């Protein structure tokens, strides 16, 4: 009880939030799979931040090697775990898979973060308007959300990339268009339940304006499901990005460091069949990297959902 009486109101509120975060973290670490997921995700983030700096060169592009020990390696990929210069081997075009994976971590994480964070922001704003205000405006927002929810993900991305051209902004924009409706729905549902709570009523009775009520009470108390949704969506965005790069609808050429792009170097080359048959590592290794990252995100998100849903905690 003593902790609640010392300090300014702000520091008290911060301390309380910190304590609840600590408690959530404790429950999260009790689930071994979620902990492993979190650890792997943190490792990927560290690689994305530090890795490209250590390797050097252009952090966006892979360096192209034409010769190795006097032989052309453009169409003859080197196997993994054999040469120290290329720890994970090379792929078609003479790109180092290891370099592509490390630099691709940064590119993928930046692209996916742009999509997920923008989508969540749009969702929070529109969802809280639709949930708190309701009425005609809320109904209209939800109808528009329904329309966008029925758009097929990769199809609409391909349509946008065809019509507006293959640019980075178009790709990110198309993915945001695909992902914002889910957040609007989640936030609205959450706001509808929080709105009925006693403390919201109390704050309205004390004369708080709508904006203040929403920002101070409603959004902080309905934010956790959004985090869960974000951690689960992050993986899906990475998968869709990789699929778009694999299909070749990209804003960058074959040297662009992106996990899907490394696979596409092998499978879209004229030697694709040979790649499947004789050089399987050009496909399997980048795919395993994607799988590990998305799986960890999903394990972490699943654990997070269990922790933040108090009914599941017991």
């Amino acid at each position, binding site marked *: 009880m003593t902790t609640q009486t010392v300090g300014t109101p702000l520091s008290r509120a911060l301390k309380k939030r910190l304590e609840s975060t600590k408690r959530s973290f404790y429950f999260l670490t009790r689930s071994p*799979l979620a902990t492993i997921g979190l650890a792997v995700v943190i490792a990927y983030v560290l690689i994305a931040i530090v890795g490209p700096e250590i390797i050097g060169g252009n952090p966006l592009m892979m360096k192209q090697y034409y010769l190795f020990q006097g032989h052309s390696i453009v169409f003859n990929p080197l196997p993994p775990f054999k040469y120290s210069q290329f720890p994970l081997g090379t792929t078609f075009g003479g790109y180092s898979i290891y370099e592509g994976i490390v630099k691709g971590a940064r590119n993928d994480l930046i692209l996916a973060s742009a999509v997920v964070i923008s989508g969540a922001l749009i969702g929070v704003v529109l969802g809280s308007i639709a949930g708190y205000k309701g009425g005609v405006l809320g109904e209209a927002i939800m*109808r*528009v959300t*329904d*329309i966008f*929810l*029925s*758009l*097929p*993900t*990769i*199809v*609409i991305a*391909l*349509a*946008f*990339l*065809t*019509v*507006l051209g293959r640019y980075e902004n178009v790709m990110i924009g198309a993915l945001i268009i695909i992902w914002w409706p889910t957040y609007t729905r989640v936030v609205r549902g959450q706001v509808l339940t929080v709105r009925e709570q006693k403390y919201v009523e109390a704050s309205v009775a004390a004369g708080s304006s709508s904006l203040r009520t929403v920002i101070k009470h409603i959004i902080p108390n309905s934010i956790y499901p959004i985090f869960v949704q974000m951690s689960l969506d992050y*993986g899906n965005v990475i*998968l*869709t990005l*990789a*699929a778009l790069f*694999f*299909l*070749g*609808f990209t804003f960058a050429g074959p040297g662009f460091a992106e996990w*899907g792009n490394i*696979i596409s170097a092998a*499978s879209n080359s*004229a*030697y*694709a*069949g*040979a790649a*499947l*048959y*004789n050089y*399987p590592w050009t*496909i*399997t290794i980048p*795919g395993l990297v*994607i*799988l590990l990252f*998305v*799986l960890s*995100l*999903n*394990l972490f998100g*699943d654990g997070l959902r269990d922790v933040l849903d108090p009914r599941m905690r017991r």
Partner: protein
Amino acid sequence: MKLYIYIIRRLLLLIPVIIGVTLITFYLSHININLLITEYEGKIHTYAQYLKIRKELHLDGPIYVQYFYYLGALFTGNWGFVSPGDIDPGTPVVVEFMKRFPPTAELALIATLIILALGIPLGVLSAVRKDRIPDHLTRLGAMAAVSMPTFWLGLLVLIMLAPTSPIPHWLTLYGNGQLNWSVYGLTSAGTPAPFYVTGGLSRPTGFLLIDTLYYGDIAAFLNALWYVFWPALVVALTTFGVIIRFMRSSMLENLGQDYIRTARSKGVPEQFVIKKHARRNALGSTTTVLGLIFASLLAGVVVTETVFNWPGMGRWLYEAAYNNDMVSVMATTFVFTLIIVAANLIVDVMYSYLDPRVRLE
């Protein structure tokens, strides 16, 4: 509420969605007029011709008039022509659509069947053996399958199948017994895939499995089954995690109910309790998820068709987008959206039939 009133209400709610979808496709198809008239490529030499074509296509009027003409063409089936650069240029989009739709429907249906056949038993198993090894393995396996890139899983399947497909040297692109990219476009006998060996026979339905049965060719039917199974499995594996999760939580919820305790206490065998009581009730709510996963299933179909050379709408979309064939891209986008909307409608109606309480809301 009667069921038919519910269906009518649900259909009325569909109208704004359809209008919204047409607005989006209209915006996309009219933002870049040069792409819209690619079917006239090579026929426009002077500015006067360009203006004439714009006038013919009603592209010079105000935007709402254009939208009106767009809607008119959309509903009368006048969807334009496949552009040069595609496999058969100049075909009306609707004709091409008739050719491309059955393979996609076939693939999606078989994938749905696999999802149900795998997802429901695994979900039940996971709930019954909660927090024990089968549960952990199922959940981890399902999550790993969902976390795989669809195209990557497809390529892995191709790598797995490659040694079992004896393809003669003269058919491969680069000799040496290596397989070419269209390994899946060829049958094991080295002839082109079943879609292309109709041998002058007409295709009554366009569905591979039905057509082969129609001609009574059992060997071809089994071959077709082999061809449809692998891509369908890839699509199913990358989508079925959601079903397992829902089935599991729904089963757990039902297993905690009073009627289960009653059934157990009066001595009903455990197998019976799970199969007849809990699972039957859990199936109802799992139906709703089918509508939810349909969007991701179709996204998986697009990628898988491209990887496996499956001549469906996803492959068409890929080819059209590759050739900047705007008309075909918009047609496939519209149809895919309609399929998702229709799937949601069917699932809602099915669920309200299974659980009449839904209609009261």
